[in-house]
């Protein structure tokens, strides 16, 4: 019986010839990432609840401080100190201030065919490089850290055939929001989302990360893409080799298959307070905004900053709008600096900030006040996610967010050049 990519990765991790949806397997993990959102809890359990605490293989652990960087209160400073001290004591790879955890993982660690646990829900981003990344809580993380293993139920797979090419002004963010709108916020619950087809080949690695990253907003356990020359070139440039390359077998069983014509997709926004509450951006035109955010593990890469800077060149951020630009990593930051993009942002009145999760996670820089409206390339628009529970968060592409920052109200890039405003 044929297997999907997800089934093949789990079978290899479980050391069995075949794995199929619905089975529960004990798996050996290739890597375990944790960030300052919950690592202090893992450390407390490790120190207080285990009789014989040990780390199965310290070389597999990566700890990243990215949620509150630099620390914004005495409390977060204390929890980060706990993480920093523990990492140093045990020799755990430790990153601080270098960028959002998933971007760091893509730049430095993820390899095709790996099975990776991350104590963060957006770990499914790693599917852009053909790795099975899945989010877990700190107890699952602790178990994996101590034993090197965990249990997984093999997920069913939803397969998305991408055809056509994106039109100008339409981006990966619009693709995944369209898909989430179609299948709903729990449309892929417990399932894997697999992306294949000619349309996929036309997408950059950044596009692919943006699509896989947001699959958890449809409930997905993981997202997976076939590895092609685009992904292999990214790895090669960074001196990494695939662990294994997998494609689904012709006779693999899928829970459902969809065809998505990229050429039919238009700019989308997700309205408050759910990611699947999507409408064409044109239906939200005119909504006044107080803040705009370009950044996050979803859309804080160099290509996103290029899109924003190209629109801003020669224009200004609307006077009453705070436009926060937050590169997803220091590497992105330096590249953007060398290209002169940061000058463009600052010249236009944007606030360029250090690489971190920022307002996407809503507990540090840039939170919005009562009744304020934010348009964001962040991952979520839940009630209270970006600050005040009475705030309103719209999600959109880098282009739509930047165009809206210029206009002071929700709009799309084509309307800027068309002079419709």
């Amino acid at each position, binding site marked *: 019986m044929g297997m999907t990519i997800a089934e093949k990765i789990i079978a290899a991790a479980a050391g069995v010839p075949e794995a199929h949806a619905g089975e*529960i397997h004990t798996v050996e993990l290739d890597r375990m990432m944790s960030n300052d*959102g*919950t690592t202090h*809890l893992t450390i407390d*359990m490790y120190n207080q*609840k*285990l*009789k*014989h605490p040990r780390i199965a293989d310290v070389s597999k652990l990566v700890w990243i401080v990215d949620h509150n960087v630099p620390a914004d*209160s005495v*409390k*977060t400073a204390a*929890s980060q100190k706990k993480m920093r001290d523990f990492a140093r004591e045990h020799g755990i790879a430790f990153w601080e201030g270098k960028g959002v955890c998933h971007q760091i993982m893509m730049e430095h660690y993820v390899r095709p065919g790996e099975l990776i646990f*991350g*104590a*963060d*829900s957006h770990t499914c981003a790693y599917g852009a490089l053909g790795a099975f990344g899945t*989010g*877990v*809580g*700190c*107890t*699952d993380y*602790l*178990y994996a850290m*101590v*034993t090197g293993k965990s*249990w997984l139920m093999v997920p069913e797979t939803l397969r998305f055939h991408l055809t056509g090419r994106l039109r100008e002004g339409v981006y990966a963010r619009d693709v995944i929001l369209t898909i989430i709108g179609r299948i709903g*916020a*729990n449309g892929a*619950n*417990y399932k894997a989302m697999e992306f294949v087809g000619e349309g996929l080949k036309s997408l950059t690695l950044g596009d692919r990360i943006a699509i896989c990253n947001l699959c*958890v*907003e449809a*409930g997905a*356990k993981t997202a997976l893409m076939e590895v092609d020359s685009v992904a292999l070139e990214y790895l090669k440039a960074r001196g990494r080799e695939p662990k294994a390359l997998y494609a689904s077998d012709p006779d693999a069983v899928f829970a459902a298959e969809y065809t998505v014509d990229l050429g039919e997709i238009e700019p989308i926004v997700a309205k408050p307070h*759910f990611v699947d509450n999507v409408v064409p951006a044109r239906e939200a035109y005119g909504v006044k905004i107080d803040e705009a955010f370009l950044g996050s593990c979803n859309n804080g890469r160099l290509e996103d900053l290029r899109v924003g800077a190209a629109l801003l060149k020669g224009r200004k951020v609307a006077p009453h709008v705070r436009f926060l630009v937050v590169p997803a990593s220091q590497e992105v930051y330096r590249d953007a600096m060398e290209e002169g993009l940061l000058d463009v942002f600052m010249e236009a009145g944007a606030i360029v900030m250090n690489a971190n999760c920022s307002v996407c*996670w*809503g*507990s540090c820089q840039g939170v919005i006040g009562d009744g304020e409206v934010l348009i964001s390339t962040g991952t*979520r628009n*839940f*009630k*209270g*996610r970006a600050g005040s*529970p009475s705030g309103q968060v719209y999600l959109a592409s880098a282009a739509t967010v930047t165009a809206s920052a210029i206009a002071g109200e929700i709009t799309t890039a084509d309307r800027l050049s068309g002079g419709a405003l």
Partner: protein
Amino acid sequence: MSEAFTARVWVLGDDIDTDIIIPTEYLALKTIDDMKPYAFSPLRPELAGQIQPGDVIVAGKNFGCGSSREQAPEVIKALGVRCVIAKSFARIFFRNAINNGLLLMECGGVQDAVQEGEEIQVEPGRAITCGGTQYPVAALPQNLLDILEAGGLVKAMRKRNGLE
């Protein structure tokens, strides 16, 4: 974990996300007990103070969607909620709840029949009874029941390794 019980119900809707269950700004508080007053605060600020130990929550689809923060099931358990009954659960929340010994039951139908404040009969792994009507509940696999019975994953691991 498996014995039947009667409990008072709090009713919530669909897609109750982890930012509703415990908002980001309170995650830096030192203990789960410190976070308790803020549970569900973006949606119903008064709810945390009204929930009594032994109560249950009945919700719609996709309960616990969103982040992997384990404080979400922990704070519900700390409030004394005996179980959460929902049409479906988001997967990370589901694992986190089981790993912390919080009983979850997937059940459709009871949401439309029960009013907040009413009492229902809960038979874990079998059925929910409300207003004389029984709503079936799917049984959990044995390995998950073992974790729940032990009071969570860490305790189950200690038990399996002969440490408890």
